[in-house]
């Protein structure tokens, strides 16, 4: 018996990384899943591999019509929607406030804040009608701490975490829970595709070993298990919470140590690019 038997979920950014690990886990636990992503070939291959309970829907999560359509696809296909995991997002820009590219800033804010808002906006009516639902938004520890190296990303994730709590206050009484999960340093290929994504994940897996108190990199599965807990009925009284999966990072090492480590990671990634 799976922990998500009979449930239907939509997972955005599901083609790779944390999203993909969550798709795989949810399917293994008995859920039916709509995978949304811009990366169509990866997403379609994933769904082919996982069988008929997993369908792909190419979606730009910053476009309202596409998000509305995504939710409709899930409801039409599976007759219900128990969980929406708003996980898609893009990387921020490096550099300080003076070199901020304004268009890029808007895209980063939209990919996190606007997309999460749109997902919640369009899933809420269905979940209210059911009297049940779990919305999970991907925050980040950089939405809790101020990361000046990625300040647009950091600010966008703070918006995600706070919007989560606001909507949790609105929807709680309808039996809908809204929570976020904030990953720490996770080895994924975010921002890259194909072999480059794999290479980036491998590099990070090595570099992240010493970046937090638990001496290993976070893995997509670590976050997927947190999402499973939040999606399942086991968390039916957890609402408005930001669940941090970071190996103890925000509890932390000294700033000096952390800055030294960050510098070495950014240097290595730049060499890879």
């Amino acid at each position, binding site marked *: *018996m*799976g922990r998500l038997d009979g449930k239907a979920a939509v997972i955005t950014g599901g083609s790779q990384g944390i999203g993909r690990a969550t798709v795989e886990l949810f399917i293994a636990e008995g859920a039916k899943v709509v995978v949304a992503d811009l990366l169509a070939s990866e997403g379609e291959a994933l769904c082919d591999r996982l069988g008929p309970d997993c369908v792909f829907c190419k979606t730009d999560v910053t476009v309202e019509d596409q998000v509305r359509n995504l939710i409709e696809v899930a409801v039409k296909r599976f007759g219900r929607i128990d969980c929406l995991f708003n996980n898609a997002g893009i990387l921020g820009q490096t550099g300080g406030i003076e070199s901020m590219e304004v268009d890029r800033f808007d895209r980063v804010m939209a990919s996190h804040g606007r997309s999460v808002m749109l997902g919640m906006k369009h899933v809420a009516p269905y979940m209210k009608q059911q009297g049940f639902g779990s919305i999970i938004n991907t925050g980040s520890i950089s939405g809790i701490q101020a990361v000046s190296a990625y300040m647009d990303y950091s600010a966008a994730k703070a918006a995600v975490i706070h919007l989560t*709590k606001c909507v*949790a*206050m609105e929807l*709680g*009484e309808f*039996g809908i*829970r809204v929570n976020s999960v904030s990953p*720490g340093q996770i080895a994924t290929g975010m921002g890259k595709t194909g072999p480059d994504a794999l290479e980036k994940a491998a590099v990070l897996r090595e570099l992240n070993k010493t970046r*937090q*108190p*638990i*001496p290993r990199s*976070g*893995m997509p599965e*670590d976050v997927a*298990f*947190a999402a*499973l*807990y939040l999606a399942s009925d*086991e*968390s*039916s*009284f*957890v*609402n*408005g*919470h930001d*669940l*941090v*999966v*970071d*190996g*103890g990072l*925000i*509890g*932390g090492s000294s700033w000096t140590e952390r800055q030294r480590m960050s510098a070495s990671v950014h240097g290595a990634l730049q060499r890879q690019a």
Partner: protein
Amino acid sequence: MQKRLKGKVAIVAGAGSTGVDGLGNGKASAVVYAREGASVMLVDLNLEAAEKTRQMIEQEGGTCFAFQANVRQRSDCEAMVQKCLQEYGQIDILHNNVGVEPKTFGGVLNTDDAEWDRVINVNLKSMFITSSAVLPSMLERGSGAILNISSVSAERLSPGLFLYCVSKAGVNTLTKAMALDYADKGIRVNAIMPGLMDTPMVERHKEFYGGDREKMRQLRNERAPMKRMGEAWDVANAALFLVSDEAKYITGQVLAVDGGYLCKP
């Protein structure tokens, strides 16, 4: 499905329920651990209460035994660890559920030194003592999970409850500090902050509602953003997640199981 705590050994301190027959957070957690395959040592100051939990687990076919201990006393905690190692050979999980509410409702001027010592010792010092008794065995094996039951009172003050709030804030900080200290040794430490719960411990709150239990339940339900209180099973399921290997990258976290109470303006 594989049981999620298969082969693990848990000590649940405060495994009996207030009023013996009810279902508190500690009892529900012990039951869930056993259902998921753990062998559970049921520790309580009130042996009769721990025995009730034992009966419930054994009726379901689980493995456990009851043990009387005062977790404020180091000698009792050392005996507890010795007994657990003797019975089960290892300790994977320490679940600190023991806690009391202050006898008096009021501020600093309504609280005497003895009451301060009592509440801080039961709610905070006990977790320090049980942890320090259990840690050497966990360190030796390079793995372990400690879970402390805190309260939303740690982060949100309520008038008249300052001493409880102080003790639970201490639990949160103790949790984060221990997590940081032992993360590289394979030991995780997390806490749960239950919100407004429908459990036996809050039964005595009815005196604030004119002794009317139903009125108390109704008003407490209304105060919660989900318009209902939580159940002991909610805390037990959160505990199961945090002590299981599914949360092996989560440490130093304080999980609110409060229906959104802490977000409420």
